[in-house]
């Protein structure tokens, strides 16, 4: 028809991740279908698209509610912080199209009434986007597959004729195969079809969406997770195209002088450090030291802890001369305590992403990242951990994250999240049981692009701070605790004697 239209024009959904998976948003002047089970987030998604189209792109829209009370849909929008009352003055119009429950059906009917009203309304307000929420309710009223098909095409044709962009939502039970039977024609009519799903993994609900097809456009075929957060729908697309960040040459301190020395001057800015160790090993303490060092450099820092109160962390760290309280009070440092069980790993990710955007830190500690693996399924948690790391890397944020090792095998925990492979530096804290003592031992497993010490060193926490003891060996074993002190004393005596 139009020679200029060699490619599909798109209208941004206003949701970053959704635009990623659809390579730009909804097809302009065409029909999009969102399918999903009850409570899968269809209505919120279309409402979000409608609101952002009218707010950011000046595209007025109409919401036709077949199932929910239109007033209530609008009120839900207020809950997401959208100024519905203001928008409804000019930009948005809600039509309550619920069919009365006591209506009696006798013979054939069609949607001419609704469409002629919509036509006038759309022309009046210059609406470009029309949402038909829960079209399945209307279709079930028709009760006859031929009539359903006919009416859908009527709406479709009507949209095309008036150059309107349409979005339908449709309830489907039990996933995709079922729709194949009843509304098989529906995906053919739509130029873009997206399936929303919700499932429960480890007792935590996980939402996901997938673009089933997008006529004439590239799309991302993978299923991507999404959450309904305080600001609406957030879609977590994993492989959005981002420019490769410029690597930093600068090295920054871990907050432990001797550890910096072992790492030949610290860690590169913009990289990440993984610290693994068993419970009580001192991972959080090292995280605290790293954060304090950042604050001392006058850099904004963010400390995210799972299942531990920020105040407790501040108090405990103060006992070994790591003082976070002044930085916290000064606003340089932000501490956020999250509850593992309260949300899926995906929701945690979105939360952390928001925190990063709000606080704009240069250094971040996440303690422990392995908490993510406890909820919402291992695979999802792994993807989240990876995305978190890439997110920080792309933003040039230096991040230290800890991971709990359970049992004796130090590789166990890191394999559940598989983060050790994408970590730039990996520090392992273990317990050395020697001569009736349990001593903390630190070693560097890897540090990319940098030389590092291969020694196993004793990690010492004291009132004056964190340090690593000088290495003393005897018979091929690193001496620790009392044995080391004895050796140290002997050395000191010898030095004195020698003088």
């Amino acid at each position: 028809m139009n020679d200029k239209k060699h490619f599909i024009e798109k209208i941004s959904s206003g949701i970053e991740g959704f635009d990623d998976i659809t390579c730009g948003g909804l097809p302009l002047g065409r029909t999009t279908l969102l399918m999903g089970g009850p409570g899968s987030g269809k209505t919120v998604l279309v409402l979000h698209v409608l609101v952002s189209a009218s707010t950011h792109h000046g595209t007025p829209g109409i919401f036709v509610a077949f199932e929910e009370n239109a007033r209530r849909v609008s009120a839900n929008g207020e809950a997401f912080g959208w100024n519905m009352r203001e928008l409804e003055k000019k930009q948005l119009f809600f039509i309550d199209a619920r069919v009365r429950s006591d209506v009696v059906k006798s013979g054939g009917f069609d949607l001419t009434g609704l469409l002629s009203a919509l036509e006038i309304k759309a022309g009046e307000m210059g609406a470009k986007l029309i949402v038909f929420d829960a079209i399945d309710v209307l279709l079930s009223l028709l009760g006859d597959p031929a009539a359903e098909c006919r009416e859908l095409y009527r709406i479709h044709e009507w949209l095309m004729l008036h150059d309107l962009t349409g979005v339908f939502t449709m309830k489907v039970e039990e996933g995709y195969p079922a729709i194949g039977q009843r509304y098989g024609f529906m995906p053919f009519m739509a130029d873009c079809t997206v399936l929303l799903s919700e499932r429960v993994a480890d007792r935590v609900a996980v939402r996901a969406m997938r673009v089933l097809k997008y006529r004439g456009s590239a799309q991302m075929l993978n299923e991507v997770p999404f959450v309904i957060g305080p600001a609406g729908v957030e879609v977590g697309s994993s492989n959005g195209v981002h420019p490769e960040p410029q690597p930093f040459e600068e090295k920054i301190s871990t907050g432990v002088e001797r550890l910096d020395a072992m790492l030949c001057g610290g860690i590169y800015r913009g990289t990440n450090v993984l610290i693994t160790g068993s419970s009580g090993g001192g991972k959080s303490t090292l995280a605290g030291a790293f954060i304090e060092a950042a604050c001392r450099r006058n850099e904004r820092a963010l400390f995210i802890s799972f299942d531990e109160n920020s105040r407790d962390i501040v108090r405990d760290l103060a006992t070994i001369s790591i003082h976070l309280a002044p930085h916290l009070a000064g606003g340089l440092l932000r501490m956020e305590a999250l509850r593992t069980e309260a949300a899926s790993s995906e929701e945690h990710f979105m939360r952390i992403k928001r925190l990063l955007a709000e606080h704009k830190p240069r250094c971040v500690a996440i303690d422990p990242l392995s908490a993510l693996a406890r909820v919402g399924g291992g695979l999802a948690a792994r993807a989240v951990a990876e995305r978190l790391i890439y997110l920080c890397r792309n933003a040039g944020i230096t991040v230290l994250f800890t991971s709990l090792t359970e049992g004796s095998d130090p590789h166990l925990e890191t394999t559940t999240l598989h983060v050790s492979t994408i970590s730039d530096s990996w520090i392992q804290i273990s317990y050395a049981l020697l001569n009736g003592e349990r001593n903390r031992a630190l070693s560097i497993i890897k540090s990319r692009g940098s030389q590092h010490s291969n020694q196993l060193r004793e990690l010492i926490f004291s009132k004056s701070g964190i340090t690593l003891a000088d290495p003393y060996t005897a018979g091929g074993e690193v001496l620790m605790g009392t044995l080391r002190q004895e050796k140290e004393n002997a050395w000191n005596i010898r030095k004195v004697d020698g003088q």
Partner: protein
Amino acid sequence: MNDANHEGDHPKGAYVFRLYLAGGAPNSVRASANLYAICRKHFPESHRIEVIDVLKDPMRALAEAILVTPTVVKLSPLPEQQIIGDLSEEEEVLRALGLPQKETA
């Protein structure tokens, strides 16, 4: 609430209907014809039908929450009753209006 009772209190007031049509669409034309036929047959003396063409007055249909055409609303006697379709299934219409149905099915 049985049929005999209904037969007894034959409406004293008029039956008032509002019929929403979409111009000359076939199902609208049929609905109109069917409604007039039912009225003539069951309450020849006492009925009133107001016809609204949604193509001419779409905002009114919107304001009155009329989605599909044809739709007929029985305004009186109360309670209000909405019937959608071309009214070709007379049995359904009579039941909705609370009138006795034909003995022979």
